[in-house]
């Protein structure tokens, strides 16, 4: 078969030329490139969890011991404090974690009997998109922390999305640990 340059006969060159002309007219008027790739807004996630009466955001200040534990046993770097929302025994956490090289933002709801919901709110990676969808995130429902900080349920990975799977799994483990911390603090206040 002839090469590309030979295939570009006069007719094709004319077609390409016309396409270029049309593009040069259209591009200046084209809508701006979207800036964000938000899969679901945090507000929408929280409204879906708690309804229209959103509880006041609370803050968990990260102590030195908790910070050390989160870094060493969970591989997760905590800030000075972590915001969360609580209604009864249900808490919601919005966390960030790096997949391969960009942060993934996930919303995680923890109830009395473990994880109730995991939802990827913003995905910024080139690969590993599978973790955005329920066929992956539904695996976390009902999971609790086992000894050693691992989940007590097996999460099946996705070939080629190993790092994104690990990032979401890590955030789920961290949310369970943080929820446990808020419960301990509540108990301590009532004793």
């Amino acid at each position, binding site marked *: 078969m002839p090469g590309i340059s030979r295939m570009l006969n006069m007719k094709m060159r004319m077609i390409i030329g016309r396409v270029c002309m049309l593009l040069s007219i259209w591009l200046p008027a084209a809508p701006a*490139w979207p800036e964000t790739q938000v899969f679901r807004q945090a507000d929408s996630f929280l409204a879906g969890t708690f309804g229209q009466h959103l509880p006041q955001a609370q803050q968990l200040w990260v102590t030195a011991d908790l910070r050390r534990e989160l870094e060493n046993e969970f591989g997760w770097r905590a800030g000075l404090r972590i915001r969360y929302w609580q209604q009864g025994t249900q808490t919601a956490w919005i966390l960030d974690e790096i997949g391969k090289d960009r942060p993934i933002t996930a919303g995680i709801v923890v109830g009395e009997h473990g994880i109730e919901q995991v939802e990827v709110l913003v995905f910024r990676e080139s690969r590993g998109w599978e973790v955005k969808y329920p066929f992956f995130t539904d695996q976390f429902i009902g999971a609790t922390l086992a000894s050693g900080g691992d989940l007590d349920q097996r999460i099946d990975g996705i070939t080629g999305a190993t790092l994104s799977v690990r990032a979401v799994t890590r955030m789920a483990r961290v949310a369970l640990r943080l929820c446990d911390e808020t419960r301990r603090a509540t108990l301590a206040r009532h004793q």
Partner: protein
Amino acid sequence: MPTIARASQFSAFLLVLSLLWAHAAAGAETPSLEALWALVQEQQAEIERLNAALDETRNELGSTQAAGRANEEKLTIATEYLDQIATGSALADSGQRRTTIGGYGELHYNDVDADAGGDYRRIDFHRLVTFIGHEFTDRIRFFSELEIEHALVKDTADGSSSGEVEIEQAYIEFDLTDTYAARAGLFLLPVGFLNETHEPNTFYGVERNDVENIIIPTTWWEAGGSLGGHYRSGLSWDFAVHSGLAIPTTGSSAFRVRSGRQKVSNAIADHPAFTGRVRYTGVPGLELAATVQYQEDASQISGDGLDSGILVSTGAVWNWQRFQLRALWSQWNFEGDLVELADADRQTGWYVEPSFRLGRSSNDWGLYTRFEDVDGAREQDRFQQWEAGINYWPVQNVVFKLDYRERDLDAAAGDFNAIDIGLGYQF
């Protein structure tokens, strides 16, 4: 304010009355009306002075409260910023954060015991790779991968240096929507399991499997453009138009696919190639994938006895509990008189790899075994190989590997067995 003033006036009035009453009771002389009026005016002046002082105090208190609120707001902003720095997630909108680095490396030791007496023991820093990425916006990004192979690259007159410096990826990716993305530049082709994901902690065996070396020449990159889409069902597709292979037709590497990679280094671009892949990952733990590639002229030279070529590759991964089964089959079919005469017009390979992994987040272990059947172009590329080994991950991104291989060549001589030890990491 008026209520307080009235209350103060009333108190002063009562005070004056009580004074008058006390004075009368004591039988003292009654003060004149002028004296009383002067006393009331004096009290009124005092009240006004006190009210003014109270107003001033209130104003000061209001200013202090406003300053407190402003300070609290500043503290919140500062804390959030420190949070962002502490978690590293966040210089997210700054140019600094938008450029990212990463990488991986692997060190191999091979102890080979060959039937034909070609024994050797070698230690080789096989590769060190650095990733550099940059995000222009959340939807337009650059990604690159720069690799040094075999630790040392030196400029020799005969080109005998075993090391190489290679740019394996350098492309711009555009997220057209949340579902579709396009790439342009130099990218890894969507074929096989290892070509796109080959960090050492993600696969078993010190050396990569031979099907994805001899039949699919991993790591395989070309220059061009691609379009891809993925859907909620777990189905995805990729289609790429890119530079083609230039497989030699003479010499010791004649018709060897791996030798046809031009690595986009002043590559001949007379004949392009097209790659399409369909992939399904809609069930956690399951991956089904199929790739078809068409090479317009696999040697880039018309009429030299090696013309077009088609690669078909299909594979599956199934995870169940702690077990995994991975299998891949790939085949090239080339057109051309010379390639048919050399019996290299059909090159095939397949492997099956069952494994078991504990699945812990640290101190994890995995065992595997693999059988491969490869039928490549050269005599040494036609064999069956069995191997078994162990991976140990102290943490998820660091791995130690140990394996044993037995290779049985189709030819009468050349069989070998080997013990391999490896260290790999990714960050």
